[in-house]
């Protein structure tokens, strides 16, 4: 008994000592976004050897989990002696919050997060909070495969990447429907409004708190604004006030015809997927069309699932990985980011039986053999062709716009 008692006491005395220490030792200076200390890639690889990378990412898709853990993790181990630990989370904000919390607690060089699958508002929070490790792109050999001239890559939701994150995947919003059930899906916002009225209860969208719900609302907003062009750039309250009431009116008019008469909205895109799978609603959409094929393969969606994009275009974005400022394994994280950009990793990811996701690298910068391989990749019948998608791509908005739209929706539509 006494032995345990003393252990407990040690833990506790330590805890309280540190608590006191923490209370007395006041604000530590905010950490700078330091530049990499490595002169060249070889140094990075050498430093990365034997390291471990804690990669925080959404963990709800077994195929993505498998790709990351088995393919990426296996290759990193084999080629660079790096151990990849995939840490499944429900929401990227949890990882951002973990870094924030560590900063708040003064954990500045021994953080728990080495890599985050990130973009948009979360990236903005981290960048503006000086929570990121930046300025290492020139060290990454595969950085040359990225077309930084492409504004949808150089800007993450309207915010300059500034070498603070590395692209690894691209996604574009698309709709799905069951061709056996729904003959003529509505291919524009006005058509959708009309369709919803004719088919009450058959359509809904997740609440604005969901990433995908939010992007659907933005499509309505684009429609109300007559296209995204006037919305690009920094947030403009006057413009917002001019457009928003139209958007809310459209959504509120639609409300009585929605699933459950719009009295509630699905909490997450997964709930919408469930509703679609069980024929509670007739339309589904996702920011990542690859998910349609994956769900068909997993038996979640019927095999007659087909996809389409809105005539006026749909919003596309790039997914990145970012390294927190307090990562203790920055070199290994950089090697991982570099490997994610490699042809091997991007090609594997593009396979329909793996993920079917669009590459983040510029195919034109690859060798001819590699280009051919990409060209020959089969397409899943349920997933819309990448060429159709890219032809209809619309840009994302600045996160300030997004948060204003999300808040406005909560206040004007949800209640």
């Amino acid at each position, binding site marked *: 008994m006494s032995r345990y008692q003393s252990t407990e*006491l040690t833990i506790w005395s330590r805890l309280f000592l540190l608590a006191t220490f923490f209370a007395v030792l006041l*604000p530590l200076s905010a950490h700078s976004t330091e530049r990499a200390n490595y002169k060249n890639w070889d140094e990075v690889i050498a430093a990365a050897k034997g390291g471990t990378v804690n990669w925080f990412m959404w963990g709800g898709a077994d195929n993505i989990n498998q790709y990351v853990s088995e393919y990426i993790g296996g290759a990193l181990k084999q080629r660079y002696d790096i151990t990849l630990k995939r840490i499944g989370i429900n929401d990227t904000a949890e990882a951002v919050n973990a870094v924030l919390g560590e900063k708040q607690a003064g954990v500045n060089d021994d953080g728990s997060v080495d890599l985050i699958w990130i973009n948009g508002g979360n990236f903005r929070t981290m960048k503006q909070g000086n929570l990121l490790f930046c300025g290492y792109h020139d060290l990454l050999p595969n950085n040359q495969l990225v077309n930084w001239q492409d504004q949808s890559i150089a800007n993450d939701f309207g915010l300059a990447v500034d070498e603070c994150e590395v692209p690894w995947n691209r996604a574009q919003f698309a709709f799905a429907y069951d061709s056996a059930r729904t003959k003529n899906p509505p291919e524009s916002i006005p058509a959708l409004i009309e369709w919803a009225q004719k088919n009450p209860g058959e359509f809904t969208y997740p609440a604005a708190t969901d990433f995908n719900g939010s992007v659907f609302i933005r499509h309505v907003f684009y429609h109300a604004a007559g296209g995204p062009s006037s919305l690009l750039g920094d947030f403009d309250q006057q413009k917002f006030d001019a457009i928003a009431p139209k958007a809310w009116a459209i959504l509120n008019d639609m409300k009585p015809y929605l699933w459950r008469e719009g009295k509630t909205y699905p909490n997450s895109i997964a709930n919408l997927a469930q*509703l679609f799978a069980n024929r509670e609603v007739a339309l589904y959409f996702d920011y990542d069309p690859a998910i349609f094929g994956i769900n068909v393969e997993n038996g979640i969606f019927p095999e007659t699932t087909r996809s389409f994009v809105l005539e006026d275009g749909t919003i596309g974005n790039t997914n990145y990985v970012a390294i927190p400022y307090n990562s203790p394994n920055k070199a290994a994280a950089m090697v991982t980011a570099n490997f994610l950009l490699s042809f091997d990793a991007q090609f594997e990811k593009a396979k329909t039986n793996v993920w079917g996701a669009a590459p983040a690298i510029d195919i034109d910068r690859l060798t001819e053999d590699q280009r051919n391989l990409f060209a020959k990749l089969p397409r899943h019948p349920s997933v819309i062709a990448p060429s159709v998608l890219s032809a209809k791509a619309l840009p994302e908005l600045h996160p300030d716009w997004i948060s204003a739209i999300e808040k406005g929706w909560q206040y004007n539509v949800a209640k």
Partner: protein
Amino acid sequence: MLERWKIVLLLSPALVIIAGLFLGGLILGLIGSLGYMPLLGREEFNLNAYRNILASERFYLSFLLTFYIAFTSTVIASLLAIGAALILRRSFIGRSVINFLFQINLTVPHLVGAVGILYLFSQSGFFARLAYEFEIITKPSEFPALIYDPLAIGIILQYVWKEVPFIGLILLANMQTIGRDYEAAARVLGASRWQCFRHVLLPLLFPGLLAAAMIVFAFTFGAYEIPALLGQNYPSALPVLAYQAFTDVDLNARPEALAMGMIIALLSVIMIFGYAHLARRYVRS
């Protein structure tokens, strides 16, 4: 004197842990909720967090919803548990099997139960499918909304499912201790079966029932995962709201999260004292 030291020695490890972790956590939470975050350069105490949440409609709705869920679940579970215990204390063929089945979900984590309830009661769940099979409904939306619904029926169903055996077992044990003698005495003194239950068994069970109900109420008031999984999106249960605020990327939301935690704790503390007060009024053998 020797004995006093012995008691101190026996108790101190547990007290160090509970006082340190539990009280420590509460005090730190209180400090944080007052906006004191020295590492972020905030060294002043203020009531902004409380002011903010008390000014938001969302918080009140969440609070009411959470209270309603906890109260309804506790009352329904208690009533069912009393009925179950009254049956299970009798002896009958197959009682041990039934007893085992009755206890089985004590070991099943809440989360698993929540998923099971989801699969049973959602608008495309098992019961909706049965209703379709019997041509009661023609499409899922005609099935009553029991999950993600404003009345939180799914959440309440899950809690009732999980807590009936818990309260039931506590009551059974109490009944075992009480025995049937008091009831026999009441019967011969002229109490009918119902009077006997109402005036004798129920008051005797009351302290145990109260304790069990209080544990259940507090648990359901503070649980996160069930409303997170089965609840509608607005308003959400208080712990969900607190967790969302805590993991908000805006650090300003943290004091608010901690303040909500404090409000949850405060309600629990009120309940403890209420319990202690009520329990003192009843004789505990």
